[in-house]
């Protein structure tokens, strides 16, 4: 299947972080796993999205040391982030429903 760039990166990141706190590289792996490697993302572009979500108060960052001794920056979804996720999920459902309705119009 042809790989596609992500147009709704914030929605996908909010959804991933709603399950557990994650660090950047872990998010990339999880995104690839859940989309069966369909989404293609230049990994560096993940950070502007994460930092923008932090600025907007949707996520909070904290540092945690891995067993290897490497300090990683984890992102945690805030209450405002959960509200934004619910809103964006609803908007996406309406949008995808409308697209499907057009595609399947008899």
């Amino acid at each position, binding site marked *: 299947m042809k790989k596609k760039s992500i147009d709704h990166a914030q929605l996908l990141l909010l959804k991933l972080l709603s399950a557990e706190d994650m*660090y*950047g*590289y872990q998010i*990339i792996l999880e995104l690839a796993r859940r989309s069966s490697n369909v989404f293609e993302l*230049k*990994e*560096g*572009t993940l*950070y*502007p999205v994460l*930092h*923008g979500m932090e*600025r907007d108060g949707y996520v909070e960052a904290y540092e945690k040391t891995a067993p290897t001794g*490497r*300090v*990683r*920056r984890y992102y945690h979804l805030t209450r405002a982030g959960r509200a934004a996720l619910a809103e964006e999920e609803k908007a996406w459902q309406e949008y995808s429903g409308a697209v499907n309705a057009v595609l399947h119009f008899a």
Partner: protein
Amino acid sequence: MDRNEYCERVLAEVGRLTNDETDDLRNELAGHIEDHAEALVEHGYTEEDAAARAVELMGDPEETGKALRDQYGGWWLVIMRRIAVFITLVVCVQSFFMLPIFSNVYESVRERLRPTVSSVSWDELDGAADLCERIPIGDDIVQLNRIEYGVREGKRQAVLWVSAYDRLPGRKVYERLIETMSLQSERCETMYGEDGNWYSSCRSSGGSLYVHYGQHTVPLEEGDTYVTFVYDRFGERVETRIELPEGGTQP
């Protein structure tokens, strides 16, 4: 391009950040590349190839740096944040030094609402009553709080509790105001010194007086019905007649 060069090129595009923000961002990007390189080594890459591939997969550093710059808002935001921190610090320090003033205001207000009255031991208490009279003298207020009379250590006498404070809570009261006032009997007798009067005060750490408490005593004779509290200084004379109450108990 190696890992360090990638990080520096991103940071160069982001622009002005605080030292902490710069360190955090550099560590985060470098950590990501290291994580990915380690994973590639596990998939059979050589360390050199894995490092190069991990950097390549990060994409264009200038593009990432510009996108990050939009999130941080530029150097002026850093300056505004530092000004905000500075102002907050100044306000905190100033508040710390103003704490004693708040304490003095509290004491001054508390004295108006719940006057301070100490207790004395009577052989025989003939009468006692709370007073709620305020006498303005200059910019200050002298408040009559309570009177008790009876026999004490074999002598008939009356004790009056007073306090003084400025009209405005938290401002200083004249140091010797209630010390210069006297409690007089119907025959204009009075008592001086430690036997007759006792004073206490609420002072700031700098020694300024904000509330002054006093206890005045006067000798009585059988049949006396009133005492007089007198201020007579600087050409101003204020006399307040206080009727001796019948009955009453100590608080």
